[in-house]
């Protein structure tokens, strides 16, 4: 089974801070990580490869520096890695990004494409489904279990708010997976010393030949009008209260708001 995995290098958002003066993100010195959902996607692919054979090929779009992330994936046992890197790609929204990724994917034949549910910097969850549309293959989002695979079909569990669905879909298809689907493995020592320094395939737009008009900020249907950090407006002043008094005050509010259980 040939599997493609879509991955993204993202800033570690838990460490991001906002400049209180300017409202801008302080991104300087923030370490980058492999998007957590994507790492689970890679793990799913490596597990499928272990049982069903085939190859795992990861694709990312990003700056040259994303190469280091791809090496970390080599160190986990990924077979091939492609970095889609061109100035023309910079600033692409999900539509343009998906166009770039799908154009690169079309150079190969994959049975299964796996993407993480969403990236922690953008949180859009859109690239996977959009890539599937551009590839003309079905997609299933929010998969939390691969229940099985046979010669022609993939059996999946999709997680919705109030239920789970067992779905069956023929190959080829694209799935987006939740991070709980598989615990990512650590880099393997043997792969570090024998795979990690292998070349990463780097493709620019000369190779992909996508219309310039469809790329970057210009080619993106959505535009960012403005960004801002949220400011919180102060409502009251907090008080120091003895525990007994504090409990009474809480009870008073509960009563006032009808929050007390009927029995009380």
């Amino acid at each position, binding site marked *: 089974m040939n599997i493609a995995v879509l991955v993204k290098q993202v800033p570690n958002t838990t460490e991001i801070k*906002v400049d209180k003066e300017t409202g801008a993100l302080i991104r300087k010195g923030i370490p980058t990580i492999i998007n957590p959902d994507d790492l689970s996607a890679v793990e799913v692919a490596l597990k499928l490869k272990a049982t069903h054979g085939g190859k795992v090929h990861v694709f990312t779009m990003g700056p040259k520096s994303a190469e280091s992330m791809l090496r970390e994936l080599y160190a986990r046992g990924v077979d091939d890695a492609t970095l889609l890197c061109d100035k023309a790609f910079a600033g692409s929204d999900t539509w343009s990004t998906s166009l770039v990724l799908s154009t690169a994917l079309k150079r190969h034949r994959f049975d299964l494409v796996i993407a993480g549910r969403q990236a922690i910097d953008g*949180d859009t969850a859109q690239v*996977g*489904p959009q890539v599937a549309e551009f590839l003309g293959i079905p*997609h299933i989002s929010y998969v939390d279990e691969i229940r099985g695979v046979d010669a022609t079909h993939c059996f999946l569990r999709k997680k919705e708010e109030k239920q789970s669905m067992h779905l069956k879909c023929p190959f080829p298809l694209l799935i987006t997976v939740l991070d*709980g689907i598989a615990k990512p493995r650590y880099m393997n020592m043997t792969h570090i010393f024998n795979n990690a320094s292998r070349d990463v395939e780097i493709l620019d737009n000369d190779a992909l030949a996508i219309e310039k008009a469809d790329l970057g900020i210009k080619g993106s249907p959505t535009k960012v009008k*403005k*960004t801002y950090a949220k400011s919180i407006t102060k409502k009251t002043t907090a008080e120091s209260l003895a525990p007994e008094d504090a409990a009474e005050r809480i009870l008073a509010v509960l009563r006032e708001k009808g929050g007390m259980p009927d029995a009380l």
Partner: protein
Amino acid sequence: MRYDDGKDCFIYIQHEHGVIENGSLELITKAKELLSDTEENVVAVLLGTLDQNTHDTLADYGADAIIVCEHPDVSAYDCLNHAAVLTEIIETHHPKSFLFPGTVRGRELAPRISARVHTGLTADATRIELDNDEGQTHSLAITRPAFGGNLFATIITPDHVPQMATIRPGVFEMKKVNTPYAKRIDHTTDVELKSPIEIEAIIPKENDNASIADAKLIVSAGRGVKDCLDMVQHVAKTLNAELGASRALVDDGVVAKLSQVGQTGSTVRPLLYMACGISGALQHTAGMDKSETIIAINNDPAAPIFDVADLGIIGDAKEILTHLMRRLDVSNTP
């Protein structure tokens, strides 16, 4: 595909077993409010059977018209078949905007359509306004959180129609506005519905955590009460409240992800929200600051949670909970 003059705001109506998803009704209400002074209509788009009851409900919440496709192959949700028919509806009616509830299904379906019709899609938005700048008459300015809620970005789609967005459920109120009459428009589809996806089984969620997003009362725990979580749970249970949690506790693995309130969890707007030992990072407050009343207990006077609290108590949460439990248990004893 580009349309030069779309009109109206379309809302995707997610439904199952005759029940309409609140997220869709919230969008109808919100769109109605935004477009009330314009010539534009709010159009509910429903794939499936439109009975009188459903028709009335959609009208009650503000739909001016309802496009309905009763083809049997789209009566149940299927991403590919729904995408095909919705694309056809877009091509037939040229809406100016098309909003989807930011549910699992909405977020699975909308990107597929936006790729197909070549238009912009904004994900999981928490705010919509009319964007009347630069002649963008009645286009939408759609705001969404990014970077784990540290930053908000306002997104527009100036050159493509329809402008699409998925909107986080629970952010807007759903309100009956009594639209006098909602016109029914039947859509007969010509597309071949051939989705290869088969549903083998539907499994209801095991412990039905009566979705925290709908809770009227939430008692929420943060790292500050990690060592007395049982007390928080006890108080929540006594008050018939849902248990909420900060991301920190969920990350620590002591509370289920379902209970997480905040940018990367659920947005809640209960009548009363009680935050115990939660410092109130933006990540958290952005998901609960619309609660009607907020009580916050924290031992750090500088905790940002106090900035959104109606009643802020500086003190040891464990001690306060002990007293609260005692009082609640006393009044609970027959």
